[in-house]
């Protein structure tokens, strides 16, 4: 009997020590994430007068912080004595890691997040970020960007990313010509026919970096403005919970067409391991003909070491991915933005950093040195560097032939971006069907809306 009691106690002790991890983190999240703790730190932060000698941490997903910005960070340190520590996290882990830190009260001084609907819900920006409405740069900040980084008229963020353009299909004109393709595809059938020709010419048609866990969703959402054109009112219905993703045949067709691209080998053999960071070098080498990139990336491709064929900027062009035969330009005013953590002890230093990077000369420095940045959504009098290719391409679509990307107009969608990407990867590998991917989106939307107490879902 005695031995039995000892056994039970020992096993219970062992188990408790195992599960305490989950439990304690949960409770600490509750305690540390409370607004009381945040406001206490807020006071201590704002009371600081001199920030020199301090270190601020900028946490961001891979590809959100340009090398040029890090150089600006060094200059900032020279001028102010404030050291900037950039914490760059792999894209597929970033959101989980950031939210865990925010929810446990351990946020970095400056954190990065995509602006838009999710700020108020997922990131709880009103609790986790500082009001930036009255900063010196506020009047020069794009009104529309301020709307996307704000909640209830209060601006909490700074979009430090070129949202003046979105991602489009960058293609290599010489490889197209060599494969006998004379014009860019405008329908899905034309796209598959062109991809077949490229394959036949020994070129892998599309570079699709699935490994990062975010890019593949963009293939869908950057074409999804066609949905509202084909079925007017669908976006509104989705937001009112009067329509479901899973019931929408157009959405299913879009996913099936994406899957077709993967299954027909248009993404190559290695797309599940391919990373976004290598996109420019693979495009420069001529191994791939097309990739969804920002137009500014063309100059980076040309300057890449792998460009042994001597491609020039004129050898690259842009077209819209014609999933569901989409020919509406994608507009995406939201993007990676910076927020100052309300619990930071270095709020003043963080504000100085933001103030520094948006100075006219520094924005110009970024535009001149970060080849994929052509402009920023803050007008400090800088000179944008749109290429002729970009201007011609954007100029060929009027307002009637443009539309906002899906994540900017549909609620509870951007929050599950990484899950959708994982599910699309599962669809490519045959583990899920398009119906299951769409159903999973509906389920997670219901979960998020339920947690947020959205009356449309009750």
């Amino acid at each position, binding site marked *: 009997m005695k031995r039995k009691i000892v056994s039970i106690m020992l096993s219970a002790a062992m188990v408790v020590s195992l599960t305490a991890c*989950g439990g304690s983190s949960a409770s600490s999240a509750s305690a540390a994430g409370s607004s009381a703790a945040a406001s206490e730190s807020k006071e201590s932060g704002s009371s600081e007068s001199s920030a020199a000698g301090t270190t601020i941490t900028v946490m961001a997903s891979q590809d959100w912080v340009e090398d040029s910005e890090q150089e600006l960070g060094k200059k900032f340190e020279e001028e102010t004595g404030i050291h900037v520590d950039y914490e760059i996290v792999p894209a597929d882990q970033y959101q989980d890691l950031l939210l865990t830190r925010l929810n446990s009260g351990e946020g970095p001084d400056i954190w990065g997040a995509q602006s838009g609907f999710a700020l108020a819900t997922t990131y709880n920006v009103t609790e986790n970020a500082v009001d930036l409405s009255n900063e010196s740069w506020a009047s020069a900040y794009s009104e529309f960007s301020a709307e996307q980084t704000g909640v209830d008229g209060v601006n909490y963020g700074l979009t430090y990313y070129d949202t003046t353009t979105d991602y489009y299909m960058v293609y290599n004109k010489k490889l197209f010509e060599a494969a006998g393709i004379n014009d860019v595809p405008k329908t899905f059938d034309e796209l598959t026919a062109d991809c077949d020709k490229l394959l036949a010419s020994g070129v892998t048609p599309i570079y699709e970096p699935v490994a990062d866990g975010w890019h593949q969703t963009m293939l869908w959402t950057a074409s999804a403005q066609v949905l509202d054109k084909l079925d007017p009112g669908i976006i509104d219905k989705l937001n009112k919970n009067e329509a479901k993703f899973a019931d929408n045949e157009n959405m299913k067709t879009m996913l099936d067409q994406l899957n077709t691209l993967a299954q027909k080998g248009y993404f190559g053999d290695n797309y599940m391991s391919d990373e976004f960071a290598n996109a420019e070098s693979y495009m420069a080498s001529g191994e791939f003909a097309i990739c969804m990139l920002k137009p500014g990336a063309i100059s980076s491709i040309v300057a890449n070491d792998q460009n042994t064929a001597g491609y020039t900027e004129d050898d690259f062009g842009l077209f819209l991915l014609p999933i569901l035969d989409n020919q509406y330009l994608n507009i995406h005013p939201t993007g990676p933005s910076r927020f100052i953590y309300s619990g930071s002890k270095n709020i003043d230093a963080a504000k100085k950093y933001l103030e520094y990077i948006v100075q006219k000369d520094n924005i110009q420095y970024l535009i001149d040195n970060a080849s994929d940045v052509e402009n920023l959504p803050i007008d400090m009098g800088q000179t944008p560097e749109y290429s002729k290719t970009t201007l011609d391409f954007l100029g060929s679509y009027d307002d009637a032939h443009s539309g906002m990307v899906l994540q900017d107009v549909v609620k509870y969608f951007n929050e599950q971006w990484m899950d959708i990407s994982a599910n699309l990867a599962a669809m490519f590998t045959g583990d899920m069907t398009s119906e299951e991917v769409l159903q999973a989106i509906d389920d997670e939307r219901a979960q998020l809306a339920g947690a947020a107490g959205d009356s449309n879902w009750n």
Partner: protein
Amino acid sequence: MNKAKIYPWYFAAGSVLIYTLLSVIPGIMGICYSFTDWSAYSKELHFVGFQNFLEVFSAKGQYLTYITNTLLFTFVTVIMKTGLGLLFAVALSRDIKGKNFHRAVLYLPSVLPILVTGLTFTSILNPKIGFLNTLLRAVGLDALTQKWLVDPKIAFFSVMGVDIWRGVGYIMTLLIAGILAIPNIYYEAAAIDGANAWQRFKYVTLPMLRQTLAVTIVLNVIYGLKIFDMVYALTNGGPGHRTEVLYTGVFKMMSKGLYAEGTTISSVLFIFMIFLGYFMVKILTKDEVVE
């Protein structure tokens, strides 16, 4: 002599109190929260009964896959680490040339932080530019090249393989200590009786190692059920959800602010561990002499 007289219960009171405050109470609170709708989105907390548990066990979600994967990971890694660890321990407890060097080589991976190991192996196992496939191609074994971490059929086994590679040295070290503690006279007696190497292993080494093996198995099972960082660093649950385990699921739920769902998965593991832990400790203490 009655040991209870030497060590009265209150000697442990301080530790028990601290342990209760820091581990038991948060653990129990975690279970309580799994019956609520606790989330980052609302300040209100409502009792929802078994709703979260029903969701975990419903076929709709991916949770059952997480549970199956965790159990599969634990089962395979325990068998492989113990088997290989025992093999290496027996081989390296003999007087062979460079014994300590071999021991060090096998033990070293377990010293490396798991995240470092994971990130290193994501590079080594890259199908196109990774060291492993490059090596295989260089020696003409192209047929053996695989998409180690992205082929749904083998990704989970690759994760297990890396974990076994990392953990086997540690198990080997524990077992070597156990083998060296076996008095040599048993082997001499067995040799005089005409026992061959296999018989000496089967009838002397194995029975005398039973307690050490039990400890290593318990350690491995606990580690396996808790597995998180290795999966997180190597595949982050992918491709798709093929390599998701319970704690990556908990992490994702918690990071989304869906705390109740996260604690529910933790609680499921808690309940499972109560049963498993009870039987394992019982087996562990089975042959202990009660004085």
